[in-house]
């Protein structure tokens, strides 16, 4: 099968060499975990434990307050030190701080689920919902919401994102190499739940070993493992679906509009593990890397482990850190401090040196049009950005600013270092605000 891809995109340096061959190492005994009540897109959870309570591994500590929300569970056993507000990647928010007693006592509710083939779709989705599963690729969208399309939108295809197109990150790569069966099982569970005939796993061809391993694991299941051309943003939802199925999500639409559900491989592996052991989403793998880190690693950690602790586990900073990102360098979010918890959607901790962190000096646009030819959404970033800078958001909207997927290809490729995506984001916010009025 030839390599599949989308139109547009860029070729940033992969920067994966430092960690792609490193097996996942466990760091499962943090002294303290700080579990945020909001680790997902949607409403924050209500804490259901108090200071002084003893909690066990897998016990519910925050309960979802609405449909678009996701439960959070304790990742360790121990005593709740406090329930208070502190810095998180989503802002100043409520966290449950638990001192780990190191005993890893598992909560009574954690028992292996029955064979998924005997369960109905509704029951499976309920189990996933209770386990607080969210999109682990970075966005953190509650998975049960994705799996609950309205009846008029039947789903026939599930696409797993194993592209890992962000430079530096290798956690999905290692996950596919080391636990391919969990990925396959998770996907089979979802295909059964939604009664879907087609399952795809898209993997960029800079990970030939992962393609091979997954193909082997998928043999006999009917699941198709597809090699994708290594190009950013190959793992963007719309681009991934196009590459795998040749279908375009209508402008302004969702994957379900064309009968597709997309999930990250890590999310699905967690679902596989959930049905094997009953354990909700309390640990995940992330890549701690960058020139600013002494010993880059792929780490399996407990949700709520302070980022600072993960960095210490990698022998600390390599000199003075210049920039700290949660996620990859293209779409990751820069943080002001390392004093915040790693969460369900923390796929990477990337540290730049001060030299790498230097902000580029923008110069005049030379109208080279590279942003236009690279935009995977087929927009004209040059125009949207120019209108945004003039506060002319109506015009920015005419140029389809809302179709921007914020992949950052335009800013990356711009020879004049224009803040293209940054200004387009401003336009998007203004346009949405105006629509709400």
């Amino acid at each position, binding site marked *: 099968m030839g390599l599949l891809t989308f139109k547009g995109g860029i070729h*940033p*340096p992969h920067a994966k060499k430092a960690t792609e061959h490193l097996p996942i190492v466990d760091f499962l005994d943090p002294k303290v975990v700080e579990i945020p009540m909001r680790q997902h897109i949607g409403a924050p959870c209500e804490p259901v434990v108090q200071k002084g309570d003893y909690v066990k591994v897998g016990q519910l500590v925050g309960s979802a307050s609405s449909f678009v929300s996701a439960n959070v569970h304790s990742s360790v056993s121990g005593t709740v030190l406090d329930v208070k507000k502190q810095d998180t990647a989503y802002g100043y928010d409520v966290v449950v701080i638990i001192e780990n007693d190191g005993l890893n006592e598992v909560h009574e509710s954690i028992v292996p689920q029955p064979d998924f083939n005997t369960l109905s779709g509704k029951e499976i989705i309920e189990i996933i919902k209770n386990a607080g599963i969210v999109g682990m690729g970075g966005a953190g969208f509650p998975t049960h919401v994705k799996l609950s399309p309205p009846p008029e939108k039947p789903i026939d295809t599930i696409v797993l994102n194993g592209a890992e197109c962000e*430079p530096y990150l290798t956690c999905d790569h290692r996950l596919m190499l080391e636990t391919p069966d969990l990925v396959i099982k998770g996907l089979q569970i979802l295909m059964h739940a939604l009664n879907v005939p087609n399952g795809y796993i898209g993997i960029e061809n800079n990970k030939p070993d992962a393609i091979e391993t997954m193909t082997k694991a998928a043999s006999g299941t009917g699941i198709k493992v597809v090699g994708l051309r290594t190009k950013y943003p190959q793992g963007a939802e*719309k681009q991934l679906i*196009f590459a795998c199925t040749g279908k*375009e*999500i*209508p*402008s*302004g*639409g969702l994957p379900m509009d064309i009968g597709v559900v997309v999930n990250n491989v890590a999310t699905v592996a967690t679902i596989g593990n959930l049905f094997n052991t009953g354990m909700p989403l309390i640990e995940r793998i992330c890549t701690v890397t960058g020139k600013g880190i002494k010993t880059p690693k792929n780490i399996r950690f407990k949700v709520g482990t302070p980022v*600072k602790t993960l960095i210490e586990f990698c022998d600390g900073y390599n000199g*003075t*850190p*210049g*920039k*700290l*990102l949660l996620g990859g*360098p*293209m*779409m*990751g979010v*820069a943080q*002001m*401090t*390392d*004093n915040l918890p790693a969460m369900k959607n923390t796929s990477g901790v*990337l540290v730049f040196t*001060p030299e790498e*962190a230097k*902000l*580029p000096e923008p*110069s*005049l*646009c*030379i*109208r*080279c*049009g590279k942003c*236009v*030819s690279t935009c995977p*959404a*087929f*927009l*004209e970033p*040059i125009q949207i950005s120019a209108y945004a800078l003039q506060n002319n958001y109506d015009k920015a909207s005419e*140029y*389809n600013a809302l*179709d921007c997927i*914020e992949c*950052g290809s335009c*800013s*990356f*490729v711009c*020879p*004049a*270092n224009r803040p293209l*995506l*940054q200004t387009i*984001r401003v336009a998007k916010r203004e346009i949405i605000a105006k629509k709400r009025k």
Partner: protein
Amino acid sequence: MESRLTVSSSPHIRSTETTQKIMRDVTIALLPAAAFGVYNFGLRALTILVLSIVSAMAAEALSQKIRKVPITVDDFSAVVTGLLLGMNLPVSVPLWLPIVGSAFAIIIVKQAFGGLGHNFMNPALAARAMLVASWPVEMTTWTAVKADAVSSATTLGILKEGLNVPVPSITDALLGTIGGCIGETSALLLLLGGIYLIYRGVISIRIPGLYIGTVAILTFIITGFDVQTTMLHVLAGGLILGAFFMATDYASSPITAKGQVIYAIGMGVITVVIRMYGGYPEGVSYSILLMNVVAPLIDKYTKPRVFGGAK
């Protein structure tokens, strides 16, 4: 933690491409043909090239100083403009002419409209058009190759006027041992430069390919399928230089793919119309300038289909 972390909007990495590198690549791509011009027309050609480059850089610095904006002479864009203008002049022009031309290109066409990226016409071509209009005799006096002040028509001039002199061969036109402006004669070296720019990703084949293709096809048809004349029309005039180096000017060409197609074909048609039916033997300059002016309009009507939009 003690140190201060930089916080900024994603993406956090940038390509290593810069405006300076792009303009330097264009300069590099022009050099072989320019050097051949000096070989072909003698040291006076070098003087003219140097004068036009230096005065373009000086004009850039001066006008940026007056405009109180950062002086960016080191970005090579003024070098490109000066070099292109010099290559578009006959070797016999008086030495003050390149200075006037460069000053006009940079101060009036480029900086007065906002500087780099804001010129609505190719500065070097606009300056050339101004010079032709103002000093028509100086701008159309051709010196025979490596001969002393013997006036010699350009190839296209010979074809147009039906002069009773031998028409140069296709090989001469390809190598560049023919009459014409300093830097336009060697089609081969200009093509080499063009290929370099495409290889480096500075330009795409779309504009030059369609422009040259349109000229070739139309000429072939109009001349009653005369291969010799068609080849000379493609190789001997300013078409190769114009198509690869002037029509592809970022600021004055459309940014959409569809727009570039319309723009390139438009230039091809206008060039052939001027050459075949107009008053001048050569139509490359005016065709590019005319299409430069409509480029914003073309962009407006060729917005790309958004991903997931109606096909």
